[in-house]
Structures are given as C-alpha cells and as structure tokens.
C-alpha cells in the first residue's frame, strides 16, 4: 500500500500501559471522532475479545486476564486499550483486536513442551536454566529471559501523551528482537493492512513500544502467521493489595480517574490530596511542602515528570517519618471498589505480553512500632493498670568491690555515651584565642592586665543522661533461683510479683549516681534485670521506683529515663519492647547490649551487699 495513503488513513494513538493520561487521551480522541466512520484497532490479543469486554463491564472493579504462560492483561480504568474497549461499548464503533495470543513461537508443540516443563519445575527455574530444559532462550524466550534480569527502559516522561504522539521519541525498531516479538509485530501489521485496505479510516491504539515495529512491517512483504491457537486464559479477580502489582499507575489515582472520568487528569492535585489528606495533624505545612518538592525531584531523577508510588512514599519517609510514609502508602495503594475482593491468581508472577513486569518492582522498607497503642487503648491501660505506690523500703550497704564496680562502669559510660548540652547557668572563663563566645570576662581580664591578656566567657557544658541497661537476655555465670514463697522483707521494697524472672524486686542506688533497678536476689546476692541509672541528675531515686513496672520493665524504664534526663541511652537486645513516640523519640537512642564491651557490661550485672542498715541516711 502506498505510504501516503497509509499516513492518510492510519491514526496512531500510542500509550504507555496503565498511565491515566494516556487513557484520558485515547478516550478523548475516540469520542471526538465518534461521528466519523472509522475502525478501532487495539493491540490486544484476538480471541480474548469476549473476556476483555466482560471484564471491562465489571469496572470499576479491577481484574486481570491471565493465561497459562503467566501473561496478564490488567483490566483497570487507567489502561488505554481498556479505555478504548469501554469507549467502543459506549459508542458502538467497529473494533478489532490485532495482536495475537501466540504460544511462545507460534509452534504448538514448543508451547506444550514448555508448559509441561513449567508445570513440573516452575517457570522461574525453566527460564533461568532454559538450555538445561532443552529450550533455547536465544531464539525462543529471549525477551522473557531478558525481562527477568533487566529493567524496563522506557523513554522517560511517560506522563506526557503529547510527547508520545510525536513519533520521534518512540522506541526505534530493533532488528535483533526475539522471534516471539517479531512474529507478533508482523501479525499486527498484517491485521492492520487488512483494515487499511477497506474504505474506512483506522485508529490504532497501540503500546508506544510497538509503534515503530508495526510501521516497519507495514512496508514489508509478509507471510501469513498461524493464529489458530489461543492460549487458554481466564478472568481473575484481584485483591486491593494486588492492584499495585498490576500497573505502574498508583491504585488510588486509578480510582480518582474512574470517579472523574470525563474531566482532565489532575495528577498534581491528586498528589497534594494524598500528602495533605493523611490524619497526621502534627506535621507542619513546611514539611509537607518539602515532601512534595522532594517527590517531584525524585521523579526527575527517574526521568519522569510525576512521582510514582515508590517515589511518593520515599519522599514521605525521608522528609517526615516512617509512620507518615505508611499512611501515605496505605492511601496510595487503596482502591475502594476491590476492597473486599481476594485474588484468584498470583499477580506478582504475571508479566505483560512483552514479558516485562506489570507493576512497580522497587522496594522500600518502612518501620513502624507494633506496640504503639492508640490514645483510647492507652487511656484504658492507664485506667486498668493503676501505678502502684511504694509502701516501704529499707537500706543496705554494698561490698567495697561492688561499689568500685559501679564507679568503673559509670566512668566508662560517661566517657563513651554522652549528650552534651550547654548550661544556661554555669560558664567557664578562658584565655582569648579566637572567637568571643559569650563575651569578655571583665573581672579576669582586669586581674590579668599586667600580662596583657584578654579572657572570655564560655558556657559550661553539662551531660544530663540516663542509661537503661536491659540485662534480661544476658547469660548468667551463676543460675538465678526462684525466690522462696515466704521471702523476707529484707530487700529494698516488698513485691509479690514474680512474673519476670529477673524482676522480683525494685532497688535503688543513691551513693554515687542515682538509679533504680528491677532485680532478682538470693540472700545477699543481687542480679539486675533492668537498670536505670542517671548522670547529672540530682533527683531522689526513691519515688522513681514507683514508675518502674514489673509487667513492662523496659518500656517503663525508658519512660522513666525520658522524664528525668535530656538523653536516654537504652542498651537492649529486645528493642521491639520499646514504644517511644512523639517528641521523646529523638531523645531515646537504642543500642544493642554489644555496644558496651562485655567486661564493662558484666561489671554492674551482679553485686553483693555487706549488711542491712536500720537508718535512712542517704548513701548506697
């Protein structure tokens, strides 16, 4: 056929699969032409017309048409070919599916052999070790094998249909493509030629990656392709969570597209709606603005104009926090029409007809506390578990070795784990070298006038920290015995609670450094379970004991630390027990027990008392 005649009769609407802008563009073009006489050619496999039309009728409920070769056609509102089918249903124009459901090479025996092997060993195993199974990936399955190892190299800026319609930026036809894809392109060209030979115009809705291939074969003399066999397929329902895996489009935007179908796609507004619409009132507007900006910047580094779901969530994670990112992700992946649907196939194993992954395959880790109580639960918890009050306590004196162990331990901790803060009251005076700090100290400067020296004031630095050491998971050099039932009131505080093995009783220290602990004991030997000790804090440790909980030893210890100290260092091997939220979060640093050298760590673990005291004088 003459090239000028082809150009005159053929109108190509290229699309990028799943992207809403293309679906809107296709719909607009078709509706604009609905009064003229034309045939709609869509690059969907022929033989699947009835299934696609049935599935499209179920929209907005999304589904997927999956075949035995693990290829799938997502039936979603933002799919351009699906939108073309829906427009056909509404306007009754002539429509033809021009792609073919070719079984691998078009050879039925190859197909049967391949599916048998896949059934026996799994498709991944067959594809990764194709030659072992007698399948030549070079000729037959190259596109599929490459898809498993490579990335989808789209031209970028896939949200601009105007750019795709200008055919200059469409992927060039490559002679080295697999037999499979070549056969399909030839088949589509034959079908198109047949349509063009009729009187009417043809509107081709075609994937941007196929356009130049089809055009290439339109000019070439072609052999007919055997299209008798259609790979058995079925319509599968998909769950709300799986919609994300079916398309690069954001599921929530699919829903918004469906809601406002005949209005222009306003992706920027949709993104703003997601970022601003989460129920986190504590996030300032400036942070949301930065998150927006970062999301768009991330998209640009991917050569895209608008961020995809990965970049939207990543921006929320890195600019605000993981909790916000989780809320954003939940919003983005929601697709209300499929809320109560379960998947009838494994969507994550499906590929498109070019054997490329259907959806976004990048992953991001979001960490949220599973122990975080809602405000209602916290209120109930406080109501039910009222804090106990101290009844009585008695004092003892530790052995000299135990006291020295405490000094050694704290000396190490103070030197290694500090949180320096400038004192608002104290300052020190030093000789001027560079910088005036808090100004010139007149008194010292006058005193040293004969030496011609100048002195300046510098704020003193204080270290007000708390160390929470969780010894419960550590190994013991001596076994801990269960307390006798009739234990005496010899310890510091009476407690009948033995639910935690190392937390039989509460003790406090106030000789060198204030601190409280939950401990186990036998006679005069004590073994600590959870210890809270302070540096730079002058408060009385006795009332602090009330705030330690036997039921939640570590959580209560951290809470106690944040109440009295500026910075809390928690050493534990069970970080999941700690639920710190809000402004306290950045004041609590959780480290593994291994962060303290074993020799130092063990020093404070156990201690012995020398004798019980009857007085209540401060010390030990």
């Amino acid at each position, binding site marked *: 056929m003459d090239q000028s005649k082809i150009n005159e009769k053929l109108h190509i609407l290229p699309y990028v699969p799943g992207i809403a802008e293309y679906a809107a563009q296709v719909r607009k073009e078709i509706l604009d032409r609905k009064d003229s006489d034309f045939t709609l050619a869509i690059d969907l496999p022929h033989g699947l017309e009835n299934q696609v039309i049935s599935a499209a009728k179920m929209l907005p409920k999304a589904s997927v048409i999956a075949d035995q070769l693990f290829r799938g056609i997502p039936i979603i509102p933002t799919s351009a070919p699906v939108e073309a089918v829906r427009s056909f249903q509404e306007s009754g124009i002539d429509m033809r599916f021009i792609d073919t459901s070719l079984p691998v090479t078009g050879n039925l025996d190859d197909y049967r052999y391949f599916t048998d092997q896949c059934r026996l060993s799994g498709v991944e195993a067959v594809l990764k070790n194709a030659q072992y199974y007698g399948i030549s990936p070079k000729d037959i399955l190259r596109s599929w094998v490459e898809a498993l190892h490579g990335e989808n190299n789209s031209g970028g800026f896939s949200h601009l249909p105007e750019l795709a319609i200008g055919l200059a930026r469409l992927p060039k036809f490559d002679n080295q493509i697999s037999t499979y894809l070549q056969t399909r392109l030839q088949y589509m060209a034959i079908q198109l030629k047949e349509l063009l030979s009729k009187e009417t115009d043809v509107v081709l809705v075609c994937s941007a990656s196929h356009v130049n291939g089809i055009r290439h074969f339109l000019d070439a003399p072609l052999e007919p392709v055997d299209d008798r066999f259609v790979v058995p397929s079925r319509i599968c329902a998909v769950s709300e969570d799986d919609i994300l895996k079916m398309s690069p489009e954001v599921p929530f935007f699919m829903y918004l597209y469906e809601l406002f179908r005949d209005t222009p796609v306003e992706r920027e507004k949709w993104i703003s709606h997601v970022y601003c619409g989460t129920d986190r009132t504590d996030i300032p507007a400036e942070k949301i603005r930065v998150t927006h900006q970062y999301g768009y910047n991330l998209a640009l580094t991917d050569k895209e104009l608008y961020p995809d779901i990965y970049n939207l969530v990543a*921006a929320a994670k*890195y*600019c605000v926090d993981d909790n916000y990112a989780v809320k954003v992700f939940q919003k983005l992946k929601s697709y209300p029409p499929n809320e109560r649907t379960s998947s009838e196939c494994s969507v994550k194993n499906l590929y498109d007809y070019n054997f490329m992954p259907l959806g976004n395959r990048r992953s991001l880790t979001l960490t949220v506390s599973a122990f975080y109580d809602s405000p209602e639960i916290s209120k109930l918890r406080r109501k039910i578990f009222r804090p106990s009050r101290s009844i009585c306590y008695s004092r003892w004196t530790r052995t000299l070795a135990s006291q020295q162990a405490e000094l050694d331990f704290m000396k190490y901790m103070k030197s290694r*784990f500090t949180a320096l803060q400038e004192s608002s009251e104290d300052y020190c005076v030093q000789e001027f070298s*560079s910088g005036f700090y808090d100004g010139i100290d007149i008194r010292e400067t006058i005193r040293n006038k004969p030496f011609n020296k100048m002195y300046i004031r510098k704020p003193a630095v204080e270290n007000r920290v708390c160390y929470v050491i969780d010894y419960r998971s550590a*190994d013991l050099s001596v076994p801990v*015995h269960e307390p006798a039932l009739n234990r005496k009131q010899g310890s510091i505080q009476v407690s009948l609670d033995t639910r935690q093995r190392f937390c039989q009783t509460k003790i406090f220290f106030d000789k060198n450094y204030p601190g409280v602990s939950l401990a186990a004991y036998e006679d005069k030997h004590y073994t600590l379970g959870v210890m809270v000790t302070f540096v730079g804090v002058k408060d009385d440790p006795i009332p602090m004991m009330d705030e330690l909980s036997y039921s939640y030893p570590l959580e209560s210890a951290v809470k106690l630390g944040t109440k009295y100290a500026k910075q809390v260092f928690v050493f534990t091997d069970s970080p999941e027990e700690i639920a710190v939220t809000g402004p306290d979060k950045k004041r609590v640093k959780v480290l593994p027990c291994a962060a303290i050298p074993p020799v130092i760590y063990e020093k404070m673990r156990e201690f012995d008392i020398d004798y019980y005291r009857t007085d209540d004088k401060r010390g030990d």
Partner: protein
Amino acid sequence: METTDLSRTITIDNIAVNLRVPDISDYYWIGQKEVFRLLSAAWLKMNAKDRIMTPVLIGPPGCGKTTLACAVAKEFQQPVYPMNCTSDMRPDDLLITPVIAKDSQVLYRASGLVSAMVNGGVCVLDEANRMNEKSWASLAALLDDRRYIESISSGTKIMAHPEFRLVATMNDDSSTFTVPEYIESRLKPILPVEFPSVHELKEIIAYHMPFVTPEHIQAVIQYLDDQKQRGSITSYSIRDAINITCFSSKNPNDTLDSIGRTILKIHDRPVTVKKSIFIGI
C-alpha cells in the same frame, strides 16, 4: 574553576574576608546507586525560584557518608568544602573567625561554609550532630528561604550564592548534642547510608588499592567477617577494611590476624561459660 580564584579575599560590608580553598580530592562513589539518586534529587534545582534542600546523611561511622556527599557534589560540578564539626565549635568557627595578626590587626578568615556560600560551592558539615545549639542557631536563616548568615564578630551579613548547597552528615556515635527541633525541621530529607554489600566492598577496596590482588581483598573481607561472627568486633567500616588491606599488603611478613588486631583493637577476653538457668513457675 581555578582554586586560586576561589581562595581570594573579598570585601563584604567594608570588611575584608579571606576565603578558603576548596577540597581538591578525587571522590568516586561505588555501589548503592539509590542513595546517590536520593541525594542528587535533594539538590536538584529546576528554576531560579526553586529552593535547594539541605539533606542529612545518617549512618554508622566509616560507611561513606562524606564520600557520597563529595561524589554527588562532583557530579554537580561544584567545589567542595568539607568541615569537621566538634562539640566546642562556636558560631565564629562556623562562619567567620577573627584572628589577631602579627601587626596586632584583626583579620577575618571565612570558614569552609562561608567560602562555599560565596563561591557557590557545596559545604559538607561532617559529624554535624556534634555541634551545639548556638552554632546551629547561626545557620537558621541560611537553611530557610532567607539564605544568608550574619557574622556577629565581623558584623557582616552574607547572602548565599544561588548554587550554594549544604549537606550535614551525622553518625550513630552517641557522643553528640541534640539537634534543635527548629533546625531539624529545616534539614530535610534525612537519608540513611548503609554499609556496602560484600561485592561492593571488594570493588571499593580494589578502586583504592588497584595493586592488591582480588585474593588478598577476599582474605581481608573473610577475616573481618570471621571476627564479626566470633563477636570480637560488633561491626567494621570500609575504612577498617581499606586500612587492613593497605597495611597487610605493605607488611607481607605480618599475619592478617596480627594486623587486624592492631587496627581493630581486638583484645582477648575471658571466655564466658554459658550455664542453663532453671526457672520455676
């Protein structure tokens, strides 16, 4: 840009301020492409009104935070001014320091930060969480729309070059000040940098020491992994791996173990005997 041009003396508000020379080291980033992309995105500027973000790189010591910042700066073709922050750093040290010269005159020397601001470079505030609140406060105006700093000691107000970029690196080391909340809200995004994979680590060592055989590199990594599994060390940094490889290649007579022990400061510790614990119910 010539280094001599960048280290010139400029006059601001009638005060002569001497600028610093940028870092001329060659930085190259290997592996972890995603974090490179995340940092590049934070520094993207699409038009004159676009605000450049001030990202924070967090991660354990020796994982390559400073290298990453400098490598991205190199990608942006901008001069780099790394600054090491300390707990006793004052606003003067961070901005402009008055220095008494021989003829009893006060000279004003710009820090790396101010030099980067004037020359349109990238300033890397290394270990920024060691800085105290006063120093952070002097940067507040620089980190928001205003984009300027005010030096009290020199009495000058300096506007940042439109291409000026700033990044802060912070590590998990605990000896730090708390970053004030109003500053933290200006430091976005917060990007975690992790240790490279074994394969990436091999590539990094090979890049820094091309004369060392791959078998030698493999042996060093194996040794470090063994020490980690044994519990002699909790973790090791890229720097440790490079140092051990470098030292062992230059001292072939010493065993890897003896070199490793010296560099990693591994000491023999008493073996603790695990005993079973009886817990009654």
